[in-house]
């Protein structure tokens, strides 16, 4: 009888789910998770210390505990670090991790308006909601998402990168031409290092320190952190804006929550999809989510000036990328990002092999991971909301002390990334550039996009051309690429179309 078959299958599934939950409902496992989230918050909030580094350094410690305990700690670090990266982005305009670049645009603007508390509250809530949404995707749509991720060949990566780069205009605000110039500079800087196809050194001036290109994190710390410090110092006579260290309330009001809901969920969807694609993570996902929220909004001009929707979309996408990356890792055994690559290694040590076999043979363990991620997202929300007020006290520190602290942590962070002095110099150079750019009202977002997406766009276009034997038109036979190309063209022409519509509408 098919009915009873189905019923027994459901009963077996429920048994697996309960077994998965039971395996982690243990005070030691949950304790390790809490320790992980706290450690992750430290790694994430200090610029230069990344989630990847935290997970990698603590992986050997987990060899001496059980698989559930070790995994709880590592997942805690991973989940805790990403929203924590938004905290310095909101308070001092320095992204704690690359994923929180888009968080600076609206988050820091809110802080300048005296709503730092609200920005931190939205960061905590939207991050948790984004992660929970992506876990729902993981629980119900894992295999379709994984199949989608596997479709990504060189041509598709090129399309994704091109779409990202076309957002340069969107993130430039009113200074589109200057934004494009900054973007070109970012793309030019991305050329430094070994040629990705022939391994021939480009623009390295014979220095082996530049063979791997210009590290992105130190440049980010310099542009955003040091540049902002220099601006504040140079303008301290004019206005004492930073002195009005108001925190304001933390929880959003009900109408505010309603306006953010759409942006949060669409951000989570974008974040999950981008996170599932190997080698594309929260940094790209949050920028695309922010731009998507801006385009869907009626009030486009508020984006970048303290829009709650923009903030919610970017925060939600950052953490949703975790669920996406975990989906690819668990279903295919392929890392969705740098952190999940390390997690695979850690699981192997415990004799657990992520991949289709795990889904078939050890379902309860997959559910354990799902529940760990759920508990982690509740923890980050609690920690984020409770910590908002004490953390926002940073703003009460007298500016000279705060500036000194930012320069100090920025320097240490830039060095800690690769233990290389050349990165510290790159950070200072980027700081000076960030200062001059702001003085000249050149937006920084496009430069960062160029630097992140340039290598992805270049190497994948060249790979795609190797595969099509140099035939450019042959690339157009790939449907996903065509969708990306159409979206790119639309995103570039949209302002023109909108103007056309606006000029015809008033005289019907």
């Amino acid at each position, binding site marked *: 009888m098919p009915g009873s078959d189905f019923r027994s299958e459901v009963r077996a599934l429920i048994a697996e789910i309960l077994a998965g939950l039971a395996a982690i409902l243990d005070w030691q496992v949950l304790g390790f998770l809490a320790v992980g989230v706290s450690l992750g918050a430290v790694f994430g909030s200090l610029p230069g210390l990344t989630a990847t580094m935290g*997970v990698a350094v603590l*992986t050997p410690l987990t*060899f001496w505990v059980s698989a559930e305990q070790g995994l709880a700690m590592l997942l805690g670090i991973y989940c805790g670090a990403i929203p924590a990266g938004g905290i310095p982005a909101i308070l001092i305009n320095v992204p704690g991790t690359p994923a929180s670049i888009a968080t600076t645009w609206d988050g820091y603007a809110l802080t300048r308006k005296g709503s730092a508390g609200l920005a931190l509250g939205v960061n905590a809530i939207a991050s948790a909601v984004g992660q929970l949404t992506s876990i729902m995707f993981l629980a119900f749509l894992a295999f379709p998402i994984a199949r989608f991720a596997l479709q990504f060949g060189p041509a598709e990566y090129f399309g994704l990168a091109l779409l990202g780069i076309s957002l340069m205009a969107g993130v430039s605000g009113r200074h589109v031409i200057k934004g494009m110039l900054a973007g070109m500079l970012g793309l030019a800087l991305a050329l430094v290092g070994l040629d990705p196809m022939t391994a021939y050194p480009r623009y390295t001036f014979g220095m082996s320190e530049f063979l791997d290109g210009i590290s992105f994190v130190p440049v980010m710390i310099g542009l955003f952190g040091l540049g902002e410090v220099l601006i504040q110092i140079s303008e301290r006579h004019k206005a004492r804006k930073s002195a009005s260290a108001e925190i304001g309330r933390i929880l959003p009001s009900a109408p505010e929550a309603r306006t953010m809901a759409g942006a949060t969920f669409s951000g989570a969807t974008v974040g999950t999809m981008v996170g599932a694609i190997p080698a594309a993570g929260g940094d790209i996902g949050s920028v695309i989510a922010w731009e998507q929220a801006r385009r869907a909004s009626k009030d486009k001009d508020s984006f970048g000036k303290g829009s709650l929707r923009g903030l919610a979309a970017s925060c939600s996408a950052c953490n949703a990328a975790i669920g996406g990356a975990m989906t690819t890792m668990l279903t295919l055994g392929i890392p969705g990002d740098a952190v999940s690559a390390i997690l695979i290694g850690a699981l192997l*040590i415990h004799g657990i092999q*992520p*991949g289709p076999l795990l889904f078939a043979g050890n379902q309860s363990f997959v559910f354990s991971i799902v529940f760990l991620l759920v508990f982690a997202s509740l923890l980050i929300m609690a920690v984020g909301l409770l910590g908002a007020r004490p953390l926002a006290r940073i703003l009460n520190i007298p500016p000279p002390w705060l500036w000194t602290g930012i320069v100090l942590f920025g320097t240490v962070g830039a060095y800690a990334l690769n233990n290389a002095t050349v990165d510290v110099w790159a950070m200072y150079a980027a700081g000076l550039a960030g200062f001059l750019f702001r003085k000249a009202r050149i937006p920084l977002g496009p430069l960062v996009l160029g630097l992140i997406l340039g290598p992805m766009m270049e190497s994948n276009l060249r790979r795609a051309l190797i595969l099509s034997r140099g035939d450019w038109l042959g690339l157009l036979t790939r449907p996903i690429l065509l969708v990306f190309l159409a979206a790119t063209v639309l995103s570039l022409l949209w302002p023109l179309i909108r103007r056309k519509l606006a000029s015809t509408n008033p005289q019907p």
Partner: protein
Amino acid sequence: MPETGASEGDPLRYNHASPVVVARLRWILAACALLAACGGAEGPYPAKEIRLIVQAAPGGTSDTVSRVMGSLAESRLGVPIVCENKPGASGALAFSYVARRPADGYTIGHAPVEIAIVRSLGYADLGPSDVSLICMVSKTAPALVVSASSPWRTFEEFLEAAVRERGGIVMANSGIGSIWHFNILLMEQGTGARFTHLPYGGSTPALVSVIGEHSDAAVAGVGEVVSHVQAGKLRALAVFDAARSGVLPDVPTSHELGFPIGAPAWSGFFGPGGMQENQVELLAGAFEAAFGTEEWAKLCRERGMEALFLDKDGFAEFANQQQRFFEREIPKLLRLGGA
């Protein structure tokens, strides 16, 4: 550098100032020299933490080997071993950094196969003979894989197609100049096969492109392919080695198939050139004790590495032979690869 220059420069300056100061300084310097001599010759080594410089980013095989070996050797040495990652330029940055440190036994480095390659690639003027090799702990053979749904079931079928189609098969590699890329070139040189090369920035994206059927085949470490082979996503056609792999026992070796090709990856440890014999032996002893533990055997099993211990003389012989091999082959191979 100010830290080292000051101690020698200062006494000379005081020489013009006051003879009393000079006399005192001489005593102090003599005392310091005596202390330093004691510390070097008879003082118990190691007296403080040892830095272990890893040439790759956190999380990869080199990093895991170094951290696990380091933490297992600590108890034997009685001092902590602190790992520091200095990635870049195929490891050349880390090798040069360690080679420039004082040879006092407190800075050592992880020595992968790249230490025998970087000179041939022009990234650093340094090779195994310029440093103090301590010991080798593991070896990983390369494996040739195709997608599980590909038409080629055996190495012979694959080779026949690769020779016939001359570039029709797309071979993903982990980067031009990487050890697995050289193995593909060795296969072309040794078998007459010709491929279209598709370079990626590492083994993982190269294997993902085969799993996603964007490319036809790839060569990567046995440990990197084994999980995908067991999951039924990839098919291993050959292991480029003389003996069968412990984790892929059913896969034929290149030597069995009549093509004695293959350049493995390996892991060892080294210090700056001119380290004291007894310090090298002490460190090698600690690593050998770590090598004997169940934790190490388990890591090797899980990562598809062959646990292989070579003491400093055995490692020196092996590494220098590897260096000569790459110096001879790389110029030939790169011409062949058209790079």
